[in-house]
């Protein structure tokens, strides 16, 4: 074991190596590791946030689904009601139309009857006149009995 000046040389080397580590090795690795730790922490936080976001979205979608179902049911019931109304309306309209058509037909029939009655009346009068004429050709002077004939015609 011989101690000599090598010791001094080694101490200098050692000091330089410590300086190198302090200056060029320790700080950058520390920075990188701290940054990575922060990144990981951020990532975990983001994952947590995403999880709660997902849960929120799920409840929201559930709610929306429920709402949509309720709305659909409402729409269906409304449409059913409306359909009934429309059917009812149509029925009423049809009934009114039928009544109207019926009334018109009745009126037309009555008119026709009247018309026919008029015609018949005229024809009966003419027939009666013709018959009476034939019977009374010689005895009745149309000009002398015109007043009487007119009154008969009016009565018929």
């Amino acid at each position, binding site marked *: *074991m*011989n*101690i*000599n*000046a*090598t*010791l*001094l*040389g*080694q*101490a200098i*080397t*050692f*000091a330089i*190596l*410590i300086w*190198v*580590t*302090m200056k*060029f*090795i*320790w*700080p*950058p*690795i520390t*920075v*990188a*590791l*701290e*940054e*990575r730790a*922060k*990144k990981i922490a951020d990532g975990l936080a983001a994952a947590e946030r995403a999880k709660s976001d997902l849960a929120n979205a799920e409840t929201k979608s559930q709610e929306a689904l429920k709402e949509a179902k309720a709305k659909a049911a409402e729409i269906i019931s409304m449409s059913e009601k409306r359909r009934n109304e429309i059917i009812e309306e149509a029925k009423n309209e049809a009934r009114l139309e039928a009544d109207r058509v019926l009334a018109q037909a009745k009126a037309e029939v009555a008119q026709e009857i009247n018309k026919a009655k008029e015609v018949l009346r005229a024809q009966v009068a003419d027939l009666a006149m013709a018959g009476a004429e034939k019977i009374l050709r010689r005895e009745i002077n149309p000009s002398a009995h015109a007043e009487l004939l007119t009154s008969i015609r009016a009565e018929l």
Partner: protein
Amino acid sequence: MSESAGLTSSEYIHHHLTNLQVGQGFWTFNLDTLITSALLGFLILGLFAFVARKATSGVPGKLQSAIEIIFEMVQGQVKDVFHGDPGMVAPLALTIFVWVFILNAVDLLPVDLVPHVLGMAGVGHWRAVPTADPNLTFAMSLTVFILIYAYTFKAKGVGGFLKEALTAPFGAKMAPFNLIFRLIEDLAKPISLALRLFGNMYAGEMVFILIALLPPYLQWLLGAPWAIFHILIITLQAFIFMILTIIYLSMANESH
């Protein structure tokens, strides 16, 4: 022991334990220790610095991950042991662990490999394992010792240090004994640090040299288990040097 076929066993061992030196007396430099330790130190820490410069906070590559594992091990130890602002303690601990580990790991190379290759280039002696040279281990432990005192004075001031040295642990009446105890305690720190690492690595190297003296067909029988066991030792010694440094600095930073 091919290159030393003409040597006796003791000559072979002696050859392996002689440093390549220049200079006279105290001003002798062990070139093998200086060159190997500096080369490997700058190589491994250069690799660390290279990776650290490109370090991404995104998905790390394999190399970056490996370095991060070592980094986080050291950081965790410092956090557990050292209370207060770690300052330079953490980089110091990383330097010690990485450097001591890579220097210890040279022990796993075949004992004749480096001396033989350099011998062919005309280099007479070459001790490959720098941590088996007490000059290196004492250089590190004395540097740590100086830092211990720097931290002590920074945390407590000179007055606080003197008060602590004179009154702990037996009270003011036993001041001389307290001082002697403190002296022993403080001196024991760098000496034990240096000698523990040196002793382990020197012994490990010696065992490899002795195994190399066996007949070639028997060497694997002892060499393989010892090398595998030695992987544990080199890691453990690097870890112990690091953790004790952290503990000593932490003690210096806190009052008793």
